[in-house]
């Protein structure tokens, strides 16, 4: 059981790092990376939970494992979408951040 302690701390630290990065990093790409670090922390926490629940012949509780597999796919889809949005924004406006800008207006139709 002691093996989960390092990963517990790593998971908590990853969540903190990811949140910090998402809030303070300006570039969209860095935000996407930070989001993935945050997600990695959450999944690792599930891993800790799964490991703690090992038993009955399973090296880790299969239910959290399945949840992580589902979650990883969803996170990938979200990342892909964010990347596409960032690329389109960059392509059209040349912008690399999502800071509030003056042109965030609502042009006449």
């Amino acid at each position, binding site marked *: 059981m002691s093996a989960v302690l*390092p990963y517990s701390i790593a998971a908590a630290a990853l969540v903190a790092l990811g949140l910090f990065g998402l809030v303070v990093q300006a570039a969209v790409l860095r935000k996407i990376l930070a989001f993935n670090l945050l997600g990695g922390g959450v999944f690792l926490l599930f891993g800790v939970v799964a490991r*703690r*629940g090992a038993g009955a012949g399973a090296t880790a509780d*299969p239910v959290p*494992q399945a949840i992580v597999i589902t979650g990883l796919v969803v996170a990938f889809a979200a990342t892909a979408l964010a990347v596409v949005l960032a*690329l389109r924004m960059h392509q059209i406006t040349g912008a690399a951040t999502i800071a509030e800008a003056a042109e965030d207006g609502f042009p006449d139709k």
Partner: protein
Amino acid sequence: MGGLVDWLLAALVLGAAAWTLAAPTGFAAVVGFVGFGLLVTLAWVRLGAVDVALTEAAIGAGATGVILLMAVVRLRGGAEEVSAATPGRAVMVAAGLLAGGVGLALALAVLALPDPAPGLAAAAMARRGELGLGNPVAAVLMGYRGLDTLLESVVLVFAVLAVWSMAPDRRWGGIPGPRFPRQEAGPLALLARLLLPIGLVIGIHVAWVGAEAPGGKFQGGTILAAMWVLAWVAGLVQPPAIASQAVRLALVAGPLAFLLAGFAGMALGEGFLAWPPGLAKPMILLVEAAMTLSVAAALALLVAGPPERAA
């Protein structure tokens, strides 16, 4: 000395994460992230979750790394804008304190989790036989929590259409992504030609063994998608036009098969998403095959992006 290995690995994971945040260039950061993904894969192995480790390697590090690398090449410049939008020291300190507070609370909460841990390992192991599956994770994904898997495969379809819908109107129906010149020679072409058949075999194998051993449709599908991306980047294949009926069908085959199987369970078995006794294994394999196809198609098309050229 398992403890030391685990501490070291955890430290490396955090180091890679810190590098990803602090790296001087976007490219370096993405490379750091791929490294992070591989280290986390190792962590999953250490945590006894080999299925997750495979998925993490295939999707978390692999596929995510590929789209981020492709993005970093196209997202150039903007350094001034970034530095202008970077918050001042006060916000930095506040964010650090608050994020640290959240991390601290989380660590305390994890330490306060009950011992022995409540969980469903025993139940999941005990009843997997009813599905004819040896791998308990597969039993969770296809059996106990089948609805999650069904909805998640639907999410992939959502995501593909969402990505497509970001295209300009006039490109609708066209071919996704940039065109890569055909590499007749060179390392990439060689790699593609060599790896492609091997990768295909491995991908299908991983998907196939998922019922008994670690593996499954997501991992297998990802490997298949990766092979296709390789061939695409090497200029050997072209993405299909998004208007193509075959592409659409490939994308929905998995979830649709799952849904139909669900109704079959309603007619023949205990209810929606129940696998009829006796038929469970063959039906699961059939649905998994369709799902592997759909997952591969979805992941590949997510990497390719919105349509950029006329068909």
